[in-house]
């Protein structure tokens, strides 16, 4: 059994245990309403984690620490544009475009200028998150049109619209791309062995630039959902997303060294993490505990990789 499959099974067990645990504590946790709440809160993390997973998957010490800042700044930039007179029907396009631009910037830093992803995107994180706070003085920018609200708060058959119309298609398309297209296979090849990938003629730099840009684009979509949901751009909407998305990607079975993993596990991991957070909130735990618990999960998921190696050594 591969490590990825083992992690997926563990994830399912963890998920069932969590739901059962919170359910035993308070049966009101086991309602459809709660399931809808979990999905409602999953969308932002799911979109961002998909980008994070692709970046990590493509190897080269790939990591995108700027995702949270990119979500905040995309949302803020979009609503600032609206405030200064841009037509509201452009909101979806502007949010996606600002995300893509920020991602492209990361990609150029990493690919064109060969700066370590962790340092390049760390700098990006502080620039994006800082600019989002500084441009707004920390307060939300209101003024989202009412026709956008259904995307943020509506539901069809009990499933939040943004989860149905954005998360599921985007994950399905990415899964199909990873499995059936050459670009998808190239991403695995990059992560598995970049040198060989280069030698067989895969356009390594172009693929990686595409991935960082795409990760930014997904952050832009997350920004759009947040605008539709809250009716405003919150400059702190992306806080802690770098930690949570890394945890989701690695728990979901993506190998930190790249080249191994898939997106189904990531989606599962996102739902698991959000269930945990929702449950903690449900039993009135201070929100700051979520950061610590997700941090622990991230480390534990990586320590898990040690076990098989350790057993083999004996």
């Amino acid at each position, binding site marked *: 059994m591969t490590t990825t499959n083992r992690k997926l099974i563990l994830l399912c067990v963890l998920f069932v245990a969590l739901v059962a645990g919170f359910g035993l504590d308070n049966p009101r946790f086991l309602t459809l309403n709660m399931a809808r709440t979990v999905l409602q809160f999953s969308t932002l993390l799911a979109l961002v984690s998909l980008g994070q997973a692709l970046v990590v998957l493509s190897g*080269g*010490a790939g*990591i995108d*620490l700027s995702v949270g800042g990119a979500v905040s700044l995309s949302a803020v930039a979009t609503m600032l544009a609206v405030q200064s007179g841009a037509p509201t029907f452009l909101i979806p396009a502007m949010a996606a475009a600002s995300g893509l631009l920020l991602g492209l910037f990361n990609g150029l*830093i990493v690919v064109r*200028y*060969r*700066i*370590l*992803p*962790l*340092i*390049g995107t*760390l*700098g*990006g*994180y*502080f*620039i994006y*998150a*800082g*600019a989002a*706070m*500084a441009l707004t*003085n*920390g307060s939300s920018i209101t003024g989202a049109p009412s026709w956008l609200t259904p995307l943020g708060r509506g539901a069809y058959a009990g499933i939040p619209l943004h989860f149905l119309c954005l998360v599921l298609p985007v994950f399905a398309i990415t899964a199909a791309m990873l499995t059936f297209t050459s670009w998808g296979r190239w991403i695995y090849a990059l992560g598995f062995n970049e040198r060989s990938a280069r030698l067989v003629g895969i356009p390594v730099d172009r693929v990686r630039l595409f991935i960082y840009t795409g990760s930014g684009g997904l952050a832009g979509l997350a920004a759009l959902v947040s605008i539709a949901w809250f009716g405003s751009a919150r400059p702190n909407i992306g806080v*802690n997303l*770098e*930690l949570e998305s*890394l*945890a989701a990607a*690695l728990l979901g079975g993506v190998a*930190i060294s790249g080249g191994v993993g898939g997106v189904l596990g990531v989606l599962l991991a996102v739902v698991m993490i959000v269930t945990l957070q929702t449950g903690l909130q449900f039993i009135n735990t*201070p929100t*700051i*505990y979520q*950061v*610590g*618990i*997700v*941090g*622990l*999960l*991230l*480390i534990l998921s*990586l*320590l898990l*990789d*040690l076990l098989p190696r350790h057993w083999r050594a004996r």
Partner: protein
Amino acid sequence: MASPAYFAAGNFAAVARNSVELLLIGLGITLLLAMGGIDVTVGVVLGLAAIGVGNLLLIGANPWLAAAAGPVIGLVLGLLTGAVVVFGRIPAIVATIGLLGVYRTAIFVVLGGSWLSGLPPTLGAVFGARLFDAVPVSLIVIAAAYATAFLALRRTPFGLHLLAIGDNEERARLAGVPVRRVRLAGYAISGALCGVAAIFYVTTYRNVEMTVGSTLALDAIAAVVLGGTSIVGGRASLLGTALGVLLIRILQNGFTIVGMPSLWQPVVTGALLLGSLLLERGFAERFGVLQKSSP
């Protein structure tokens, strides 16, 4: 100059005062980057150590004991971070991002959601004092720390091993360098330096708030990179770090004087970090300087 106030001696005093913690933390980050590591928890480690020192002062413990608690707490947390990175075989950035979350929760738990304030000025008599009424104790401690690190990097096996690991970990291992022990020691030293910085933090501010040290890690990494220490390891510049710290604090001080809101500070520091790396890369490409490129 936008403002004559900039030249007032008081401003230089403020810059020097604000640089103390960052100089110590930056020294630790220099060692970590030089061996190919990184630690984004340094700010919250300072916070946790400061809480330890502050609580001991509050219950009226011997001030020397309270001060000693700072480096001890820092050392223990550094060892924990190092153990997770080294024995868990987890990339340092991922491990320390996870631990950052854990330590932040720990700060909330030990502070109980409020500030630690009204700390007695007990430590000021020693750590806020000036030797011969001229040389601040903080400067002596910082100079001693930098001198020790300088000698260690150039004259001791530990220092050479540390640089060798940063240059090429696999080759260092094959050459017989005790890689794991040296890396663990690197994280422990960095943690202890955060703890020493915590003593001066408590001496000066006499309170610890929930968000303590939230931008210290960025400031420290930016200062070290500005100073010329390689982010892929193998090269350390202690003088560069000290100058990088002063440059960042002078810039922040200057921006405050011209009236730029402090919210812009992380943007400026982040841009400085990326800008210096881009410049370095540009020069390397332009003049064909041979450099170890990022993996």
